[in-house]
């Protein structure tokens, strides 16, 4: 196996584009190395992104944030301004694995691993994040929900990589939150996950919202009906009930070792409600 550690994005793209075999991207490695150790992956080459300086940066951009693909969860958690703007996105990323894993795992890696249960993804989707994709034909910007296409599959073409996740401007009265259900308290994988982001106007009416669910479909799903249930309301009990019902209705999960269809459908609604209450509070809304 070949190990490549380019120092520029161009070199990384060129390595990915030119390699003829099974060539994998290594950011934190918290998925890739586990797969390799458990005989689920046997790549011919690994391209490590961590030597590329720009990929290690959290940079203000257009009122929002550009987060390099090799930034770890722990680095995000220690970035006070980022946390102030997007606490839901950061707390979702900080739920991945353990303290040790947090030192390595990345949000871009979590996205490109394309698991429907990825913790950071519903939060990013709710936040309206976009992925900056660099490839042999240049750079494009893609809504994050369009990157995973199925479990373990992405829309990235050969030679392409995500070099940064871009979070939009938060605005004055915005708040986001992510909650997941796991049978334990940590070191686990979401049975259902829900990200909610909303904006309130001066009198506390919700003017914009995005709601995303994880682990209830082959990819993380956006639930516009759930957002509609909040927009124009004061995010009161009736709105929360409507949100909950919309999320349960949108959930199309499977029965598996981690949960049943009935359980996931019900809990999707429960988590949406709880996450919306937190997001509202963070947006400065009345309890």
């Amino acid at each position, binding site marked *: 196996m070949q190990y490549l550690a380019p120092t520029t994005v161009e070199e990384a793209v060129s390595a990915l584009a030119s390699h003829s075999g099974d060539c994998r991207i290594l950011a934190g490695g918290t998925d890739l190395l586990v797969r390799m150790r458990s005989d689920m992956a046997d790549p011919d080459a690994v391209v490590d992104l961590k030597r590329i300086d720009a990929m290690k940066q959290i940079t203000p951009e257009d009122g929002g944030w550009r987060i390099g693909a090799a930034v770890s969860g722990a680095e995000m958690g220690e970035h006070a301004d980022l946390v102030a703007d997007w606490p839901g996105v950061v707390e979702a990323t900080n739920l991945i694995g353990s303290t040790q894993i947090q030192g390595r795992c990345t949000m871009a890696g979590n996205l490109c691993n394309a698991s429907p249960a990825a913790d950071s993804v519903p939060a990013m989707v709710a936040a309206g994040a976009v992925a900056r994709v660099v490839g042999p034909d240049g750079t494009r910007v893609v809504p994050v929900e369009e990157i995973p296409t199925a479990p373990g599959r992405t829309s990235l073409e050969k030679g392409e990589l995500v070099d940064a996740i871009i979070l939009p401007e938060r605005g004055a009265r915005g708040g986001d939150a992510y909650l997941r*259900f796991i049978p334990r308290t940590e070191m686990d994988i979401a*049975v259902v996950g829900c990200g909610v982001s909303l904006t309130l106007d001066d009198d506390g009416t919700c003017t914009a919202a995005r709601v995303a669910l994880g682990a209830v479909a082959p990819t993380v799903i956006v639930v516009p009906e759930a957002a509609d249930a909040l927009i124009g309301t004061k995010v009161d009990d009736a709105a929360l009930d409507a949100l909950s019902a919309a999320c349960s209705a949108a959930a199309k999960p499977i029965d598996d*070792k981690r*949960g*049943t269809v009935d359980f996931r459908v019900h809990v999707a609604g429960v988590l949406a409600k709880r996450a919306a209450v937190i997001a509202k509070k963070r947006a400065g809304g009345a309890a």
Partner: protein
Amino acid sequence: MALDDKQQYQTREFKVVGTRVKRPDGVDKVTGKARFGADMSAPGMLIARVLRSPHAHARINSIDTSAAEALPGVHAVVTRADFNEITDDDFTADILDNCMAGDKALYDGHAVAAVAANSPAVAKAALKLIKVDYDLLPHVTDVDAAMAKDAPVLHEGRTNESVPDGMSPNVLARYEFGHGDIEAGLAKADRVIERTYKTEATHQGYIEPHACLASMGPDGQADLWCCTQGHYMVRNTCATIMGLEQGQLRVTASEIGGGFGGKTTVFLEPVALALSKKTGRPVKMVMSRSEVLRATGPTASSSIDVRIGMTKDGRITAAFAELRYQGGAYPGSPVEFGSMSAFAPYDLENVKTVGWDVVTNRPKQAAYRAPGAPMAAYAVESAIDELAKGFDLDPLAVRLKNAAREGTKASYGPTFPAIGLEATLRAAKDHPHWTAPLGENQGRGVACGFWFNFGGDTCVTLNITPDGTVTVSEGNPDIGGSRASMSMMAAEELGIPYEQVRTIVADTGSLGQNEVTDGSRVTFAVGLATIEAARAAKREMCKRAAMVWGIEEDAVKWEDGAAHPAGENAGKHPPMTLKDIAAVASNTGGPIAGHHEANPEGAGVSFATHMVDTEVDPDTGAVKILRYTVFQDAGKAVHPDYVEGQFQGGAVQGIGWALNEEYIYGDDGVLQNAGFLDYRIPVASDLPMIDTVILEIPNPGHPYGVRGVGETSIVPPLAAVSNSVSEAAGVRLTQLPMSPPKVLSALHSK
């Protein structure tokens, strides 16, 4: 000399026993220096990997190993054809078949071939080149399904004569215990309940995967280093399988990262020896976690019917249980222990249990901490709890009313001597936990548990060094702190400081036969042998002092670590300390040692009562453990830290079993959760600190009153947690694990 030789309990003032001394293995373990199974290497060593069946049940028509053998770097491949068949010992023949499949693969993960190669990568590549021609057979993994008349059959002709005609050949044995007249007793009850409970198979979850290093020479001598609970068992089993004389196979036990019963048999060792024999090179094998879960020995899953009658004042009039355990693909599920222990905590006039041992297409079960008892206690303690609450009676009072005590004829036969059940129940009733307020969606559960405890073959040798330090050699791998405990008991008996004693776990060439570290036997049996070995050494030291002083041996007594002249005619001599005597040993007859070999029988049964508070999230079914207290009789806690650790460890494993741990098989009979992500043992943040209360009701059969404590602690938690969750949820749960989907479904069915 004037020494008390009695092995029976004698009241005494302890100086070392009962203190919290520093553990001797602590520094090496926290610095990473301790050598576990995978830490040993040898010159010229090969690495071996195992090819495992991907099918739950399949006939093996042929195995073509030629391509694997031709791969550069591969030294040998073994299959069952490389082993001699064992025809006169079914027990060991089953172990061999489990280590390497014969004409059938009996479960997902069953070993079918193994490769020894220069490197792990080559061994892994070689596995892909082995071609196994399978005929798939129908399979069964559920115990009730396996008992159905039309169930797929694993073995023909292995049914024990205790099984009535007409049952599935998967039912291998029937057990029955009890006394009195069930129907007559039930007729006297104010209420009779009849319930069925189910528990899933769980794994011990020890942190260290199995590993060994084998070296077998052409001269018929062999050495084996391995992680095990009993290297003497490994020696004897491997010698039988390999056709070796026991004395020619030396086994050394590594440090052990947990066992809990799962390391009381062999999985890799005969395969490593066979590969070493074939290659003439040392061969190392290390399991992955997935192999541990697929192909070692989880405990049985169970299905249990209980029928209990109670009067409205809480007296049990009759109790019946029928227990069905599947123990994987071979005979020997722990249903006999389950049937014996189910009602052991109670003094019952009419009691009966019937147990069925059933085979399924799952890995061969191994012991798991009080094997068979937790599931039986879960069923019985759930039913008693439901009856008590139905009559609005205090569940502790009901248990006290029916509690077994000294003189009770146990449901499994014997009459109990002094036991500690009542003491644990009274301690529970008096504890602030019992009356602490509970909030919304919270519940409190209690349950009792019993374990037999065992003795078994034991050897200890205690040597006095020339500078007067003491070394103790025992033959039991130290899982629960036995090196510290043995050093403490030796120091206590000799009257010297703990720091003056070091205990080691000796290899199989150094001592006689030792039973494995199981059955909560070590602190009891090895402790007894250590005390007796120390007494033998004291006798010898008194003799040496008598020689120096020129007086009779019986005019010398041992006190506070020194020989003293005793009696009127002994004369006035300054005491000779152990160090003084050691210094002149060479001139008074040579080195001084004491040893003791025994199969002690007075192990003394053990009881516990557990109390747990839980909170149920009504919207998700998630269960949180809020508070947990263990009350258990230790006889005498030699090292209280270790005793508390055993109480806490058993409680935590029981919580895992109750809440989220389970073997999940798909319709294809393949294990779906062979990893610690989806086989969910509790993590630290799932748990409160487990509080412990040590009761000390001395065991009459041990000189210091010690009882085993290692296993009883896993018996009550399944029921205690279930009783607590049932109260918090407001609905009775009768299946484990109580994972969130199950609890939510129960809440929605209210």
